[in-house]
């Protein structure tokens, strides 16, 4: 027997995985560490061996300076950070709405399949298109919102041009695909609900909200967990809707970390500074994901 024949079974999975792992290492893992490395430098994105107009090199080691400036001398960083926290908290509202919709479309009524697909439709649309639609919706001169307000005799509200409202306006737009996604998660979860337990609950006199709270929801726990994780990660990386709807404005008040990173590195040519913001964002997500995995493994262990 050759070496290959003896070890075929053991080696095959690794060989199959190799291309994917290689690509993952090159395009995901390496850039993460490279970004962290760049964040300790001042770099304008030009030739690393070149010099600037003032004689300083394009690329120079500055240690923790980028982080120090970020935390002590950049008001916009805190604006972005708080906007990220707003995104994180308020985008969770999509989850109960998704659950309600899932319960609604889960009934056996004629034509429900079509209604289901209609509700799912927003998730298939590109975020840029959703951003444009909502920008029109909010348009204080010709938008639908202005029209509705005028029916009640109210003045138009320029949602996206108000520093206190812009972020919420964009979060509401993000509900559009967000609710559709959580709805699908719950519909899948509902098909897995144990009918015997529902029957047993019914015999014990549970109905309506008590049934939902004590019998159905506990069984939907895995779906809820995934919905929360996906929504939070999605809210932390929110970028496209902001770029389309406000471009971070008015005067930077709707910026989030991902958008600020893009601005600083690609428009202001401060690659090191942008990388420092990216690293902070990475750490925030990391803490959260570590906590999540820890919870997941603990739950699995206790179930066994």
């Amino acid at each position, binding site marked *: 027997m050759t070496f290959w024949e003896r070890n075929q079974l053991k080696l095959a999975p690794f060989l199959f995985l190799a291309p994917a792992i290689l690509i993952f290492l090159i395009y995901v893992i390496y850039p993460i560490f490279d970004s962290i490395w760049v964040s300790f430098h001042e770099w304008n*994105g*030009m*030739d690393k061996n*070149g*010099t*600037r*107009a003032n004689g300083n090199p*394009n690329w120079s080691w500055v240690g923790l300076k980028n982080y120090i400036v970020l935390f002590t001398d950049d*008001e916009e960083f805190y604006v972005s950070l708080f906007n990220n926290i707003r995104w994180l908290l308020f985008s969770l509202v999509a989850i109960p709405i998704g659950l309600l919709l899932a319960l609604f479309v889960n009934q056996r009524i004629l034509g429900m399949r079509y209604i289901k697909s209609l509700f799912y439709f927003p998730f298939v649309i590109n975020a840029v298109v959703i951003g444009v639609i909502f920008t029109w919706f*909010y*348009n*204080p*001169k*010709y938008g639908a919102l202005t029209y509705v307000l005028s029916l009640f005799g109210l003045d*138009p509200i*320029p949602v*996206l*041009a108000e520093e206190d409202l812009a972020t919420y306006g964009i979060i509401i737009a993000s509900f559009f695909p967000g609710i559709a996604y959580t709805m699908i998660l719950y519909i899948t979860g509902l098909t897995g609900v144990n009918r015997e337990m529902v029957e047993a609950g019914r015999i014990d006199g549970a109905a309506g909200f008590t049934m939902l709270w004590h019998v159905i929801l506990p069984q939907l726990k895995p779906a809820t967990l995934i919905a929360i994780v996906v929504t939070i990660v999605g809210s932390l990386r929110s970028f496209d809707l902001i770029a389309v709807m*406000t*471009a971070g*404005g*008015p*005067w*930077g008040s709707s910026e989030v970390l991902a958008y600020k990173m893009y*601005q600083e590195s*690609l*428009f*202001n*040519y*401060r690659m090191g500074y942008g990388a420092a913001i990216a690293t902070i964002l990475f750490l925030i997500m990391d803490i959260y994901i570590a906590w999540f995995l820890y919870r997941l493994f603990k739950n699995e262990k206790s179930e066994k």
Partner: protein
Amino acid sequence: MKKLITLIVLFASTVVSAGTLVVNSNQSGESSKAAFDAYVDAFRAAHPEVTVVVNEFEHEAYKTAIRNFLTAEAPDVAIWFAGNRMKFFVDQNLFQDVSDVWADAGLNDSMASTKGSLTVDGKQYGVPWGYYQWGVYYRKDLFDNLGLNVPKDWEEFKWVCAMLKKNGITPITIGTKYLWTAGGWFDYLNLRINGYQFHMDLTAGKVSYEDPRLDATFAAWRELIDPGYFLEDHASFSWQDAQAPQINGEAAMYLIGNFYVPTLESAGVVDKMDFFQFPTIVEGIGVAEDAPTDTMHIPSGAKNVEDAKKFLAFMSNKEAATNWATMGGMLSPNKYADKPTNRFSVMGAEMLAAADDIAQFWDRDANPDMAGAAMEGFQEFMVKPDREAKIRARLEKERARIHGAL
């Protein structure tokens, strides 16, 4: 065998380099592409020994791509912009000195009006191919209905605004969502109040944003903001969105560049429109105008410098220079080019010919990060004028970070 391959490689590389001219272009719009193609074709006809290869990029994507290709895989000619945007690459030693092209092709004479914006330390680093004017595009029919005349000075301008407002018409339309339109207003107010040299010192970071001379600029701006002469909720609108009120006849004036004209034509209101120069504010201040200039440069890494210089020098060809500019809706910087026929371009050409100085535009004269921060501040000021002191302090902090303490 190995020798044969080396031979073929050598041969192939000489074939490619001798007589091949690689041009990177950002002329991606329909009319601007056709205009640029006309120039390339004319050049091919005049120089059949040169094979021109054009790499076309989408206009916005080009702005980020150029930083990569100038260092990694430099073309022989790159299209770009004059002023600080050019200087940025000159400072990086990424553009070549082409003063000899200016001297040999007589550009010092024919391109005299735009020479300043292509000069760094007395040397020219590129050749202009087109520019366009800024000014006030207004609804002549609305002015006529109310018996209003074109305002010549600041008092008249404010009076016209007040009359329009009184008659239920928005005096000035603007969309500041993408900020730069606010930069145009600041440019003109500051150029008319403090003059060209002060404005250039400010964009170069040599003057504080808390300098008392800027008080008058912001105060004049406030004279339009406080009575509500600008379009309401302008921070919601892009510059295209802001066209609608004017096209619908709800707003009268728009301070914008000549690229607005094709929209007016396709919307069918061009006959109701006219143009006037931004009014004088302080008597005795030289007249300066914003006229962004688009240019060609030879990167330092160019392989075929000889033919690249021919390509730049070809701008001295009157016909080719005329076609490229006018087909793309621009003015030709070559003073021997044919006069434009479009009436807005005619007015623009006359206005710019009479101007004492030409500025590029706020975000082309100032450093990229300073320009962005400042325009954000201008937008905020236009909505919350009471925050002036806070905004100017913030901009000064940013200026000190970028350009150093004064």
